[in-house]
């Protein structure tokens, strides 16, 4: 009886603890946005973080003997700004963000690996850092510049790292900039930008360096964030006739490639997508280019890319220089130089319609392949 009561008490306490945990909505089908709950959607305009572009987050330690700065541009999330924010009241009603741990890059490969390890962020068990905003207060009237508003705010929320979450209050600036033609290169929507800085104590997340290690690792992390958001979700294509489901899956594949370390799931998803794109040369080419060229991909499966690239070339009748050079590059990455050179040469044929600049670029790459092939050929 006593042990049963203890177990029950533990469970109750555990549940109570869980209820205070950072609750961040799940990602959308594309993986590039989150799914705000209905209550958030009714609270105001939802602005979605523009992910994959500029740096959104910079973390740096205060260690006296080692300066590490990790950046991420892969944060996804949203803010809710009340509709009539210009008439007073809190400028932020809610918000939530997910930061893939794998997206944090120091520029030093060994530190990138170390950060993912169990000693630091333990990406295998906690692949994302989570942040929710519960409220924001503005202590002064907004600064008005034309039709843009700037609020100085104090944001309250919860930050969860490695399964531990803490309450956070941090000062920030919120800029609201309505859509304008000159900004369409970024997106068509209205903009919000949330900027700020905060210093957090690593001990709050269960990590404290030993006295010997302290000069190298520090015990506080300075977080600087600059999140640009848009009222148009990043997975929204303005082409009204696009197949939205396929488009979302296409984006999801990129998301799996770049933000997860799960090649099994990534390429299982990719294979299913390839089946649906089997008669779509451009769609297949997109898969090839993602595997070949997207930054931060944990595992580039060139067998997968080869299958898609060959089919794209077949569908295009071998008349697309873009498809042919991508196929050549896949072979190059696999170390199959003869095939790489052969397909690259194919791209120079007249029927591929290359202009002078395109031709020069293809020839340059071909020269590089030829030089490498000669360099690695066994000496006679």
């Amino acid at each position, binding site marked *: 009886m006593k042990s049963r009561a203890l177990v029950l008490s533990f469970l109750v306490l555990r549940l109570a603890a869980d209820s205070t945990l950072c609750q961040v909505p799940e990602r959308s089908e594309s993986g590039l946005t989150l799914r705000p709950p209905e209550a958030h959607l009714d609270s105001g305009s939802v602005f979605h973080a523009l992910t994959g572009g500029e740096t959104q987050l910079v973390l740096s330690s205060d260690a006296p003997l080692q300066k590490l700065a990790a950046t991420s541009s892969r944060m996804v999330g949203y803010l809710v700004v009340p*509709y009539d924010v210009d008439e007073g009241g809190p400028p932020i009603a809610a918000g939530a963000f997910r930061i893939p741990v794998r997206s944090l890059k120091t520029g030093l490969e060994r530190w990138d690996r170390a950060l993912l390890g169990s000693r630091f962020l333990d990406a295998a068990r906690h692949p994302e850092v989570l942040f929710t905003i519960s409220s924001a207060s503005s202590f002064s009237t907004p600064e008005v510049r034309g*039709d843009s508003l700037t609020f100085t705010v104090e944001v309250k929320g919860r930050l969860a790292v490695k399964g531990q979450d803490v309450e956070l209050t941090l000062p920030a600036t919120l800029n609201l900039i*309505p859509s304008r033609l000159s900004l369409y290169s970024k997106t068509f929507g209205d903009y919000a930008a949330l900027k700020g800085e905060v210093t957090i104590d690593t001990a709050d997340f269960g990590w404290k360096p030993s006295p010997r290690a302290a000069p190298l690792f520090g015990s506080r992390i300075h977080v600087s964030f600059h999140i640009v958001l848009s009222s*148009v979700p990043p997975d929204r294509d*303005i*082409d009204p006739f696009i197949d939205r489901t396929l488009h979302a899956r296409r984006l999801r594949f990129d998301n799996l490639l770049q933000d997860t370390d799960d090649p099994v799931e990534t390429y299982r998803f990719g294979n299913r997508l390839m089946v649906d794109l089997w008669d779509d040369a451009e769609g297949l080419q997109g898969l090839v280019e993602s595997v070949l060229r997207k930054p931060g991909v944990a595992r580039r499966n060139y067998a997968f890319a080869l299958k898609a690239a060959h089919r794209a070339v077949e569908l295009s009748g071998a008349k697309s220089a873009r498809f042919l050079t991508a196929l050549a590059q896949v072979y190059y990455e696999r170390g199959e130089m003869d095939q790489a050179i052969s397909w690259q040469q194919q791209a120079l044929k007249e029927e591929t319609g290359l202009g002078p600049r395109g031709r020069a670029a293809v020839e340059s790459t071909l020269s590089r392949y030829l030089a490498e092939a000669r360099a690695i050929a066994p000496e006679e």
Partner: protein
Amino acid sequence: MRNLLHDRQRRIVPILLFGLVFSFGHRSSLHAQLWDQFGGPNRNFRVESGSLSASWPPEGPRQLWQRELGDGYSQVLYEQGRLYAFCRRGERDVVVSLNADDGEVLWETSYDAPLLPNQIAEFGPGPIATPALVGQRLFTYGATAKFHCLDKNSGRIIWSKDFAGEMDRGVGRGAGASPVAFGDLVIQLVGGRDRAVVAMDQATGEERWRSPHYSEGYSSPLIGRVGSHDLLIVAEGTVPSQISNPLATRNRTALDPRSGELIWKVPISGGDYTMSILDLGQDNLLFGSSAYDGGTRVIRIRESDEGSLQAELLWSTRKMRIAFGSYVRLGDHVYGSSGNYGPTLLIAIHVKTGKIAWRKRGFARASLLAADGKVLILDEEGSLAIATPSPDDLVIHSRARVMERISWTTPTLAGTRLFIRNRKTIKGLQLGLENPRAAAASRREEK
């Protein structure tokens, strides 16, 4: 003898009275069944109708018929049991007249209309502009800037003009302003230097006047009256080459429809990529809204003691931005679908103050039309709803998916029949109150 005459009078008078009542009632019901230009008979998306059922079965209102049509976004016209639709098949513009009862083709006329060299067809090749039905003539303006006058009974082309061929211009994403009639003129916003607004004789096409430089746009001009003045109100668009120029002016203007003479002009600051639908209320408030970095603006027009007109901006806001859907003004509120690529909301806004009364989620970009004290809402996903709007709320009575996306064209309501189209198909729906058993029997027959 006197008694006999008296008796005959007693029989005849009621018959005469009945005839008068019937004829008046019939004319008003005929007028109620008319959609002869962009926005309906009054160019404001408000029509008289029969009683519309607020309760639909899950599959939606009963479909009367459906047929393939062709590409384009023009509204369908209706008059006396006939529909007039403007579409495109391949490289040809097609004007077709259909029997409204069953969708059968009565006549069809087409002409070559290859896309212009710089025409951008990312949203389709058009046509965009809605024709105008005036007397026995039907006036069409295609996306490639070809203007035609046809005989509405036979489809015979009476005269035509090619504005793109005569003048060197681009049509952007397709010429989109709908023609409007005034007296014996048909007036078209063409755009560009020296050929901006063109007024033509309806019978012959002879050009009667032409206004000076205008930026072309997709906004359809409006004929209105303020005091003793007839006005042709035009929303100037954005010349593609000036899109990035924040200093380029775009104006709401009013011209004398008889001469093209400028009466007033109100400059619009900042960007206003104009697809704005204009509405002039009885209170002489001119409402217009556009998306992108546009917004909603109300211009107040006043007649001075000397009889001249002045116009000034009363208020503007970016909290309501209508992309291309129609909106309706009922009383002091406008009800419309705001938003473009981001979230879209149905919004009620006070015309005199710009205060937002309410916002509702749940529809993609939508077009509205008002009839029978209700609004019909058709969103681009093909979802149709019937609702009762008020300054306090929007009560949705029924909703059903009736069309494939993309449904960007405002439906046409004639009586209790609704005609909707997208880029491929046209269909007729029955929205009137029906005997449930008869309706069910009709559905079984259709299956």
